[in-house]
């Protein structure tokens, strides 16, 4: 081995750490974002190449096989459809955490029974966080892919059972820190973490997925950072801290957007079925309109804000929405999109779906940017969104979503809501928006209805 190799390895790690930070910095704007991916890739390749020079490696056979196999699995995972990105992300949290948990386990058995107390503490943190992230993320992926029932499953004393499990895992960890020779306890600690991951996700419904995915992201990052402590790898600590910070920021964003305190989210009290008086709602009159009428109102408007929700993605209506956007823009109508932070199944998901449909990103406004525009807006067109437009969140202190920040579509001159029927959304909360005098209900499938409006608009142009 050439002398000085260890310095070369360290330098590749330092360069990789710098590139990782730059990667995230360049991600701040869509203009430089792709450069960020490039920086990340170069950093990763450098670090792997540096590691392969490590003199302790005696056999490259398994490393080579595993790298190739990983790449073969990775390519299809990188090419899933954009609607499937949330479940892919959940799956990759599981893979990342699996790697961390396996490495931690191997390290434990290599070192036991002589594990210094500090090392044992971070190792326990690593495998407990890693373990619960593996199964928790697999559960989340299963729910998002709709392999598992999306309905939250709750039972009495759920929080108690979950906290007790976590407490037992921590107690075992403490015992191992004090007496690492009690190796027989180690599998129990990991096993409980794995079961806890499942139990943690069981009570969570589809609507809370953006928060949960962010939280699991944070856990995956923190477990990787803990692994960095165990292996004394600064690069891993940096990458884990960045991932943990990103997941944490996104979780806080998501819980704010749903008006839940962070502790409320942490303790899995979310996803509970709301048993408000939704059933007792009397049949109030609503105004409805046909595609022809909707098309006429839209073409007479100067300023239109489209508010998409997950319903739009489920109906696969984004390409029809793009046609509508094109036609209206051609007629000189100013069309923008107002996007709530929790629209979609993960943070930013709606933006990706609209970008895929070729809608320019400078027309995609987040809630704070767009809310001031509604009073000057002629038409707010709500497609497949419900609770995030519910004015009860502003005015009705008794409403379960009271205090949740919403898109103020009701302040627009005319509100049009495309909806299958008058059934309330997943939260089971009635939406007073639908009964307003300036609201028109457009009943039907989002894709079909937007398609009819598009036909009207283009047909009308042809005849006139």
């Amino acid at each position, binding site marked *: 081995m050439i002398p000085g190799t260890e310095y070369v390895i360290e330098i590749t790690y330092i360069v990789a750490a710098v590139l990782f930070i730059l990667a995230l910095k360049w991600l701040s704007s869509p203009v430089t974002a792709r450069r960020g991916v490039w920086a990340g890739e170069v950093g990763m390749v450098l670090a792997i190449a540096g590691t392969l020079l490590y003199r302790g490696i005696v056999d490259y056979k398994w490393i080579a096989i595993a790298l190739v196999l990983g790449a073969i699995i990775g390519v299809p995972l990188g090419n899933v459809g954009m609607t499937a990105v949330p479940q892919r992300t959940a799956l990759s949290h599981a893979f990342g955490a699996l790697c961390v948990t*396996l490495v931690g386990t191997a390290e434990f058995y290599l070192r036991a029974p002589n594990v210094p107390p500090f090392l044992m503490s971070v190792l326990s943190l690593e495998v407990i966080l890693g373990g619960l992230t593996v199964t928790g993320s697999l559960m989340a992926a299963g729910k998002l892919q709709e392999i598992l029932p999306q309905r939250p499953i709750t039972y009495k004393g759920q929080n108690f059972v979950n906290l007790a499990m976590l407490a037992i895992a921590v107690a075992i960890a403490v015992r191992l820190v004090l007496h690492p020779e009690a190796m027989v306890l180690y599998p129990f600690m990991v096993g409980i973490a794995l079961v806890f991951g499942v139990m943690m996700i069981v009570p969570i419904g589809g609507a809370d997925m953006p928060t949960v995915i962010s939280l699991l992201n944070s856990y995956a990052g923190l477990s990787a950072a803990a692994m960095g402590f165990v292996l004394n*790898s600064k690069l891993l600590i940096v990458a884990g801290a960045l991932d943990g910070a990103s997941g944490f920021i996104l979780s806080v964003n998501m819980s704010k957007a749903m008006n839940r305190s962070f502790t409320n989210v942490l303790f899995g009290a979310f996803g509970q079925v709301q048993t408000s008086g939704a059933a007792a709602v009397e049949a109030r009159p609503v105004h409805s309109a046909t595609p022809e009428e909707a098309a006429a109102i839209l073409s007479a408007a100067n300023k239109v804000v489209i508010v998409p929700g997950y319903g739009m993605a489920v109906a696969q209506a984004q390409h029809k929405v793009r046609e509508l956007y094109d036609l209206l823009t051609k007629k000189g109508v100013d069309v923008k999109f107002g*996007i709530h932070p929790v629209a979609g199944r993960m943070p930013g998901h709606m933006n990706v779906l609209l970008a895929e449909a070729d809608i320019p990103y400078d027309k995609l406004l987040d809630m704070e940017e767009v809310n001031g525009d509604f009073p000057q807006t002629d038409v707010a067109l709500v497609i497949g969104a419900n609770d995030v437009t519910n004015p009860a969140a502003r005015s009705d202190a008794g409403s379960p979503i009271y205090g949740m920040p919403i898109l103020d579509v009701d302040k627009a001159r005319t509100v049009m809501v495309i909806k299958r029927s008058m059934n309330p959304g997943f939260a089971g909360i009635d939406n007073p928006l639908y009964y307003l005098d300036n609201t028109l209900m457009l009943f039907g499938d989002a894709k079909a209805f937007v398609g009819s409006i598009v036909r009207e608009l283009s047909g009308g142009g042809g005849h006139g």
Partner: protein
Amino acid sequence: MVTADLFNSLYVFILAAFIGFEVIRRVSPLLHTPLMSLTNALDAIAVVGAIILAGEHKSTLATVLGTIAIVAATSNAVGGFIITDRMLKMFKSSRTQKP
């Protein structure tokens, strides 16, 4: 010795977390999905630990676990970078749109 390593590591962790908060706070909500898939790909750097484990051959268990860990992390890195780039490619401004 071990304690010195610990404190070094803690410094690195705290500083990296601060940088992470400052840098990621500036990422527009527009790009939060690519942000998550990119940090996920970067997290796959755990592969360096797995490579050493699988290559050192200190025990059969370590080699087996290390090998599986390499597969898991590599698939994350490859898949994560591919999908992040695919997503970012789609984001076009109305000024620069259409070649």
